[in-house]
């Protein structure tokens, strides 16, 4: 990879639109160990934040990732970015393996651990960037905007101050900020503007892939749409690929091409956005979609309300993790299979996968009955 610094430029026409695979994640596992015991060193348990997740992201597309607390989506993002070491699994970017850590059984079979070296990792970071959720915590309060946005190019070799400043100005303009603010400090800006600064920082290295971790959740409603439009425009202009992590399903629907649903460390469904929102294949997805209040007082629907709390990833239920709250299971008379056998992601056709033994039972009528509206 060359050391020259070109500002992010419009993508050449050929690369526009979904193309080859940019990111491939396989069997990713991240367990946080809970230590206790006398000296605080013995392992008494583990928080299984991410427990075997696999998917791929095509070049130019936006993969949305939704889920509630404890589902592991944020941890997943950090592991993909190599900010947190994975427990096992592999991640490959543009075909190149970033890391491949075999699980215990695989090590016994002789598989070796593969990780890129430090120098190579640094190079790889130019392709993989991130935008964080908290506009107030994601910028160093003691650095100027110019320094923040210019730090990436600086550590990757752009030592010339003038050239760096020029690059920073271009980036600020690209995200809609006034260039004269290059010498100001983050505390002088509003939440939405800080997010733009964060986006400019992410773009400074001309990445292919950007992980957006709840980028608009902390912003006021009237600012959210500004930033979402910006992300959309930047994607089109620069040919970016996004992994968009969020909990607001309406936002995710708007910006994503495909959407994955996570629950307690597992990917339970993955489908094209229209497919998922209109014909969900997993009872959890159904419940999620039903739970969202519609800003339309005429459509005060009765909702599918799940019982109970979200299980803790330190102690997930046996078999299918959703079985403790599953409305479908209840309807089907509590089949044992849900507890005995963990469902794997099954192909429902057309790239739509869902991890449920009884996906075929889900239909609008069944859902309506579960809510208690229509009569069978």
């Amino acid at each position, binding site marked *: 990879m060359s050391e020259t610094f070109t500002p992010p430029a419009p993508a050449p026409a050929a690369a526009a639109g979904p193309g080859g695979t940019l990111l491939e994640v396989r069997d990713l596992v991240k367990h946080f160990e809970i230590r206790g015991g006398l000296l605080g060193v013995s392992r008494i348990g583990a928080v299984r934040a991410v427990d075997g997740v696999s998917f791929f992201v095509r070049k130019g597309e936006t993969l949305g990732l939704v889920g509630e607390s404890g589902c592991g989506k944020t941890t997943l993002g950090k592991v993909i970015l190599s900010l947190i070491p994975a427990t096992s699994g592999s991640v490959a970017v543009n075909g190149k393996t970033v890391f491949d850590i075999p699980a215990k059984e695989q090590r016994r079979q002789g598989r070796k651990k593969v990780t890129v070296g430090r120098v190579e990792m640094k190079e790889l970071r130019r392709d993989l960037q*991130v935008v964080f959720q908290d506009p107030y915590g994601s910028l160093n309060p003691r650095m100027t905007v110019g320094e923040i946005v210019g730090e990436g190019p600086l550590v990757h070799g752009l030592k010339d101050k003038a050239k760096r400043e020029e690059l920073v100005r271009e980036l600020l303009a690209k995200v809609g900020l006034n260039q004269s603010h290059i*010498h100001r400090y983050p505390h002088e800006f509003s939440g939405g503007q800080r997010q733009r600064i964060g986006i400019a920082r992410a773009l400074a290295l001309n990445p292919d892939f950007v992980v957006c971790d709840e980028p608009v959740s902390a912003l006021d409603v009237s600012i959210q749409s500004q930033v979402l439009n910006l992300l959309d425009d930047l994607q089109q202009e620069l040919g970016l690929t996004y992994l968009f992590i969020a909990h607001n399903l309406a936002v995710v629907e708007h910006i994503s091409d495909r959407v994955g649903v996570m629950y307690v460390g597992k990917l339970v469904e993955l489908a094209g956005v229209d497919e998922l929102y209109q014909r969900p294949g997993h009872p959890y997805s159904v419940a999620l979609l039903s739970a969202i209040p519609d800003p339309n007082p005429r459509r005060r629907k009765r909702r599918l309300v799940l019982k109970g709390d979200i299980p803790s990833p330190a102690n997930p239920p046996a078999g299918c993790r959703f079985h403790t709250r599953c409305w479908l299971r209840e309807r089907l008379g509590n089949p044992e299979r849900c507890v005995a056998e963990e469902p794997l992601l099954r192909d429902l056709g057309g790239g739509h996968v869902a991890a449920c033994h009884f996906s075929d039972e889900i239909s609008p009528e069944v859902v309506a009955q579960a809510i208690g509206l229509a009569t069978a």
Partner: protein
Amino acid sequence: MERADLTTPLASGALAGAPAEIDEVDLVPVRTYWQMVRERFMQHRLAVMSLVILAVLIVFSIAVPALTGDAYRRSNLAYVDAGPSLTAPLGYNEIGQNQSVALMKATQNSLIIGFVSVLIIGSIGSLVGSIAGYAGGWVDNLLMRAVDVVLSLPFFFLILIIVAFFGVGDVRVIIIAIGITGWTVAARLVRAEFLRIREADYVQAARALGVGHRRIIVRHMLPSAMAPLVVACALGVADAIITEAALSYLGFGIARPEPSLGNMLNNAREYFYANPERIFYPGILLILLVLCASFLGDGLRDALDPRQKVKA
């Protein structure tokens, strides 16, 4: 107040999703972080006063001994127990030493000991704390157990022993003794800050950019960790000054004829009924030094605390 022309085309390359706006930011002059710190500090009247008093004391404690040479030592038996005069506003003691000059020299000693030992404490503390906080894991564990060991030893007696062993009255020994027993507090402080900042998003962002460990520690983490450390250091100066005074009072610190606030207090003990003012002068100065350092520390803490912004 200028009004943005709503028909102005956006800056080249800017996208329609990011509209030109009357930037609230432009309505406020540029204020750097340090300017804001200074503003906040200035609002703390006690701290500002303390800073001024301390500055005056420092100037005097440097100037007077510099101008009078070793006058503080010389005893002139003609002036035994003499009262105040123009060149000796505080009079003379029982062996004819000029008290005011001696007091200034004593203050100088106290300040030197205070600042230099805190410098040592701060340096060792930052080093240990930052490594422990950044590395985590077994490194952190090891370093913290070392801190525990040092902490479990009673400070003052340890200092006494060190001083007694290596040389009573040697200012350098006193400084080093205070330094190597007092760094643990600073280490814990810095470590706590590092642990906290390590998880901050802007540090994660820097890592994601490919910023190396050294730059992250120096540029991103240390500056934020410095705030509580600076406050602790200001209070530590007060602490060190008192420790030295106590040592000298007990006879383990600076010994006569070299003056110290502590040994001046000790001497004055015998003359309490005859010349009570001999206790007051070093006593008041000691109190003044300690109070000023404390208030300064308070002011610094409030000034450096980023949460002091008023929320609308």
